């Protein structure tokens, strides 16, 4: 019988710790499949961050480093500068990338650092138990915003894909979601494009993935998918915000 589907070689056999209905597992799978399809598992270094993404170093079968909270883009910079021939990616959540690590991600993008940031935005702190994230929506409840996020007190949520796209060094920035087969296929194309542009030397690339957190949203997995589409997507519109695919040619001119 022909094998039509199997676990990607980009993943280890280790059982993942994610909660039921969480889409981190899907995103891991997509990154792993892209590494396998581009045949770069053996020439890639990934950087795990702090949060639900912390154990990514156990799950990807390429070489991995674990970074301090928010510092993954700096760690990735160190790796890439030593090994410009390797593919380097970070795997970061919204607290890591959009709160404590904003300086590192902005400056990695500004430098056009040839890395790919996989940015998982689920609008909440997952690992620590549901605290407010910089991406938590106005009115959305969190353990540190029990009445819901309030614009007067906390400001409005941050849109990273758009923000980083303003920087010349950002060769690619796209926001996708992973809620159904069509959106998952779209997300995989975005991740593949980001890695391909990185390998071509175009500059910094990021894919922001809207992700579910049923546990901390207090919803069932199916409800969480619906909530994501009804609430996250209107505030965080899907689409390509930067595509400077031609940047490599310009730089050499």
């Amino acid at each position, binding site marked *: 019988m022909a094998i039509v589907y199997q676990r990607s070689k980009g993943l*280890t056999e280790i059982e993942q710790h994610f909660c039921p209905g969480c889409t981190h597992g899907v995103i891991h799978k997509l990154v792993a499949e892209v590494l396998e399809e581009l045949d770069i*598992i*053996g*020439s*890639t*270094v990934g*950087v795990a961050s702090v949060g639900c993404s*912390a*154990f990514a*170093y*156990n799950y*990807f*079968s*390429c*070489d*991995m*480093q*674990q*970074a*301090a909270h928010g*510092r993954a883009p*700096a*760690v*990735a*910079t*160190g*790796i*890439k*500068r*030593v*090994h410009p021939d*390797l593919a380097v990616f970070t795997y970061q959540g919204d607290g890591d990338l959009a709160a404590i690590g904003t*300086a*590192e991600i*902005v*400056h990695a993008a500004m430098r056009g650092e040839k890395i790919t940031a996989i940015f998982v935005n689920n609008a909440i702190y997952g690992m620590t138990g549901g605290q407010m994230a910089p991406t938590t929506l106005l009115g959305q409840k969190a353990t540190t915003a029990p009445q819901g996020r309030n614009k007067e007190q906390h400001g409005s949520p941050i849109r990273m894909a758009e923000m980083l796209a303003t920087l010349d060094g950002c060769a690619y920035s796209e926001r996708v979601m992973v809620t159904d087969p069509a959106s998952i296929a779209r997300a995989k194309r975005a991740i593949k494009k980001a890695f391909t542009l990185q390998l071509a030397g175009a500059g910094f690339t990021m894919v922001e993935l809207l992700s579910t957190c049923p546990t901390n949203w207090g919803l069932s997995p199916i409800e969480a998918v619906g909530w994501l589409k009804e609430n996250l997507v209107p505030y965080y519109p899907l689409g390509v915000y930067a595509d400077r695919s031609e940047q490599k040619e310009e730089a050499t001119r």
Partner: protein
Amino acid sequence: MAKELWKGNEAVAEAAIRAGCRYFFGYPITPQNEIPEYFSRHMPEHGGVFLQAESEVAAINMTYGAAGSGARVMTSSSSPGISLKQEGISYIAGAELPVVIVNMMRGGPGLGSIAPGQADYFQATRGGGNGDYRTVTLAPATIQEMTDLTQEAFDIADLYRIPVLILADGMIGQMMEAVEWKKPRARKLPAKDWATDGTKGKREHNIVNSLFIDPKDCSAHNIRLQQKHDKITQNEIRYEEYLTDDAEVLFVAYGTTARICQSAALKLREAGVKAGVFRPISLWPYPEKELYACANRGSVKTVVCAEMSMGQMIDDVKIALNGTKPIRFFGTGGGTFPTPAELMNVARAALEEV
């Protein structure tokens, strides 16, 4: 080889390049700016990388990534900037990465002053970051010694997979002295088969990591780190004795202060007072037994600990001497120096008391 005149900050950078360091990540701060400036000019000549980071926090984490990928790598800063690097240093120690860090100390706390200081002793030797870890701390007193110790720092870092701190001050960084470039003694260093340089499909993936979520694993990790620290304490103690054979009053001081103590000891001897200097070079591991032996050899009646701080290394002097000798402290703070005359007065007063 002929002697050349070198500024301290530039000499330590050149020494790093000569030691095979090809990656430097830093952020400007006075009084160490000539270090990143020197690397920015000369790293490209050697095919290396100089990168000015957006912060000290980013610089130390770039250093982490580069070291984890198998590179010889350095970062440098001065006191407030070193504070910002402490998180990264803790992770480097936890992940057991070989990194060399230079601290050209200035006055503190906070922004303090930009003049030379020695008030980061606690931070350097006790670990300014979280967790049970140690940083090998080497404290040169001359620019020559700093260049010699730089090669050693990289070798110690590689041999034990541990962060090594070169702890100097703004005086050593800013002044110029004669330097003779010596051929370093070669150490046999282990292969970096743990580094993340791509599996190439030929081995299991390498993981650079300081997270051990199971307390049993984390405990075993800590015990292993402690065994490494014990080995370093056995093998890497450095110190110098100056006129100690018949000394009745013994100065204990490191770095710039030790040089001023040497001047004071010479002048005291001209005036008929037998003075000597014990100078720890490795501040961690501290030459505890060696200081005890020196002070208890027979002639020493009293000990004077001098620092450009309000009293930090004195804790280690007290631990080493364990009540066997009276100890007097003399310190200056915030970027000021003790003068030989002041130190002579303290030594005389200490002798009168015994």
